[in-house]
Structures are given as C-alpha cells and as structure tokens.
C-alpha cells in the first residue's frame, strides 16, 4: 500500500472527480452506470459535501442503490424526471455530441464490435445533465463523425428531449456543450496541458476562447473527503481502482 499523497498535490483521477463534482452542482439524484469509478467518486463526493444530498445510485452497488422494482426502475425514474445527472462515454464521441457504443465500420459487418448501447439511447434524452467522460483524449476517440449513433447529442425541435450533454471531460481538458449550436466549447485545460495540444489530439471542430483557462485544482477540503469517506465507500464497488488511486482497501480504517 502506498503512502497518502500530500494535500498540495493531486492525482489526475482526483482532479477529474472534483471537476465532475463541480458540474454536478446541486442535484436531488445522481445515477452512475457501470465501469465509471471517477464519476462514482464525484457523485459520492457531492453527497459527502451535501451531507446526504443528492441521492446517489451506483448501479453496480448493493449498498448505494435504493431500487427495488427491477432493472426498469432506473429508466422509469429517469423518464419521470427523477434522475438529474447521469454519465455516458463512447468508444467514439463526435463534435455534435453523438456517442458510439456499438461498432467501428459498417455496423452490419464491423471491423470492431463494442458491447452495445446499454441505456444510452433513452437516458441521453431524458436526464437533464448528462456528463460525457472519456479518459483517452485522442483523434481515435474524439472524431469528426461517429460510425454509429448509439444516441445523438441533439434532436430536432419536435422530439421530446428534456435532457442531453452538458460537458465532456477528458484526461486533457473540459469541454462544455452548447446546446443551441450543437457543438463543444473548450472551457479549460488541465494543469500541464495546453490549448495547442488539445487541437492536435481532437478529431472534431470546437469553439475556443482566445486564451483558455486552467482547470482549477481541488480544494484541500475536497481532497480530504475524497481520500477519506469517499474512498471508503467507493472501495465496495471499485476495489482495484480505490487501492490504486487512494492507496486503500475495502474495509481498511480511514
């Protein structure tokens, strides 16, 4: 087990979790799907800071999950407007906010096949704040046009669409999504990264201000919560991630 990092430095995962926590804002219910340890950490951090608000549903967890009506309950909840924030990713994400979770190439005879769209083709439409998340920021993943639209970033005006993307967080930067323009705007680059680097590694066109700010580092209080209470809760669902990032194991004393 490694020693805890000092409070004036933070790991990339901690920075991203705190950025996402900021984007969550004030919410009543944040749901997190499978294989999303950093968004889960952000949601649990929001709950720790909000002293119990928001409700957090980690779909993979037994403990952090109140559903009793089967797999449909999350979707019924979301359709009824009772999920405020959700997270999605994509094997490919394009500049219009379209995500691809299905295939590269012709979907009928693809070159690469991914697991599938899960609930994205519904949740992306009905959850008001969908935060896109991709820790590989490259021209391979952030493309001009996805090969398969699992769920589109925007819809025609007559399509029922109370929800959609608000931001895209990567290992290099934060993009905010402009719903009216249907495209991303570079909001900040993470410490140690530059606007030129973002342009080099992004396959889609986006808007950018003349000078781009740096993503703010987490506060000492947030880092303490993250490394303490949040890491303890997260270990139930993501033991390997928690041990790797926070240097602690499920059940270890805080």
């Amino acid at each position, binding site marked *: 087990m490694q020693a805890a990092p000092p409070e004036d430095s933070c790991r990339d995962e901690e920075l991203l979790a705190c950025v996402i926590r900021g984007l969550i804002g004030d919410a009543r219910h944040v749901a997190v799907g*499978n*294989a999303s340890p950093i968004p889960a950490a952000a949601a649990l951090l929001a709950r720790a800071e909000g002293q119990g608000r928001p409700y957090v549903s980690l779909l*993979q967890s*037994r403990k952090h999950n109140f*559903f*009793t*009506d*089967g*797999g*449909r*309950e999350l*979707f019924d909840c979301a*359709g009824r407007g009772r999920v405020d924030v959700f997270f999605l990713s994509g094997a490919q994400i394009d500049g219009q906010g379209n995500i691809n*979770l*299905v*295939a590269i190439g012709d*979907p*009928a*005879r*693809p*070159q*690469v*096949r*991914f*697991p*599938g*769209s*899960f*609930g*994205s*083709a*519904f*949740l*992306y*439409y*009905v959850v008001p704040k969908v935060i896109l998340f991709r820790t590989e920021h490259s021209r391979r993943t952030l493309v001009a046009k996805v090969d*398969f*639209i*699992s*769920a*589109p970033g925007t*819809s*025609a005006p*007559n*399509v*029922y669409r109370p929800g959609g993307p608000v931001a895209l967080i990567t290992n290099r930067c934060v993009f905010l999504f402009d719903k009216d323009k249907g495209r991303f705007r570079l909001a900040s680059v993470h410490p140690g990264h530059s606007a030129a680097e973002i342009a080099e590694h992004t396959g889609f066109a986006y808007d950018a201000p003349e000078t781009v700010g740096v993503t703010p580092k987490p506060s000492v209080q947030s880092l303490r919560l993250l490394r303490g209470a949040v890491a303890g809760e997260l270990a139930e669902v993501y033991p*390997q991630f928690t041990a790797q990032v926070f240097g602690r194991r499920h059940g270890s004393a805080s």
Partner: protein
Amino acid sequence: MPRIAPSIEDALAAVTDGCVLAVAREVSGVAMAATCALVRRETRNLHLIALPTSSMQADLLIGAGCVTALETSAVSLGEFGPAPRFAAAVIAGALRMRDATCPALHAAFQAGERGEPFAPLRGLIGSDILKYRIDWKVIDNPFAADDPIVLVPAIRPDVALFHAPMADRAGNVWIGRQRELATMAHAAEKTVVTVERIHPGDLLADPVLAAGTLPGFYIDAIALAERGAWPLPLPDHYPADQEHLAEYARLAATPDGFARYLERYVHASRAA
C-alpha cells in the same frame, strides 16, 4: 403445478432448437449451470433475448454455436473486458444482431406480460439503433400535436430461463427484489428456473417472503442447481468468481482457447 425435475437436463426440455429464449442480466440471477447443459446438449439456432444485457452466458452460448439471433442492449464481460466470442461472431457476420437499448427491452417485455401488441418509448429518435430496427416504428402521439414517439413490439419469448435463491415444493420461486424475473416469466410461454435450494415451507404463506415470490402458476420446470449461477454472482448469496472469469476472458479471446475452456469446464462436468 411445476415439478421439481430430477435433473437440470430434464428441466430444460422446453428449450428446443430454434426457440426464442429470454435470459436475465448478471445481477438478477443467470442460470449458468443450465447454460452449460444447453451447450453439452448441442442446442442450436436459439434466438436469444437478454433482459436487457448479458455477459458470459451469451458469450458462451454464441461461442458454442447455439445462437443464430441475438437481441440485447449489450454483451460485455464488465471489468474483464469485451465479450470475445460475441464480438468475433458479429464481425464474422455469424449472428443476426438486433441492437436495442435497455428500457426498450424492459418496455417490450412489459407489453408482452400484459398481452398488449406494443409499448411506446421516449428517446431513440435520431439514433442508428432505431435506423437498423425495422421492426420498431415511429408514430405521432395521438394525444398531442407534433410529438413523434417510438413503438416497440411486445416480446413474448418461448422460454424464460433464470437462476433464483429458492423454490418451495409447490413450485413457487423466491426472486426477492429482482422484479424483472417476474416480468420475464409473465411474458414467456414457459419458464424454467434453477434454484440454490428447496424451501421447506410455503413461500406464499409468509407475507414477507410472498412479496418477493413468483407464483408456481407461471413456472413450468424447476431444477436444483447449487451454485447454479457460478462463475457469475448470485446477488446477496455469493460473489462472482473473479479468477475464473479472468481465465474465461483470457481463453475465450481465441477460438482454440475457447475450445479448451469448453473441454475443461463445460464438457468435463458431465462426467463429474
């Protein structure tokens, strides 16, 4: 009244070649022992429907050549990576694939359990999922102006198959909070269940247990299969066998490795 079958093989008589078979997602209770029995029996031409996703079960059945059509929202081995036999079959064009999204499958089974022809669902419009699903339709909401909405046809599978913690002698099955197992059974023509153990009393007599019980009325065959979800988890009872799943993911990455897996863990257990 459903009978407690003398063996898993007997209970699986309803799963015939070419039938539409509905299976549960990993956290609900996957009948893995029964799945291995289907592979040993060389079941063919299954039309597999996952409610709403699958993991090793679909991958195993596809790799063993039991499946010709698949409807699902995803097949993945989770933290063990992509489902290799599923991906290989799609890339080879060996599988008639119907990509869906989770709530569409929930809605279609709910329509099926009510005997209705279809269910409406928000979302989907503008996605390529909808584009490739020629069996799904878009209509105008008849109760509002200029409001397109998707309709998905009801799903009424020939057989639903899952694993549950217990059944009683009358064939009632306790499913706890895994409510989609009830939906699956209600929608299906026949339901086959494997269970960890036989409950000595009447599950419907105790109101606490009765709330989580699927009545035997909906069930056709039950077989005892201790650790019948292994190597997948049975929630609240036992966790996934991480080491075994890692080994599966490693072996199933190639056709030869998958054949070795079948030989070692699926065909060998017949003799055991």
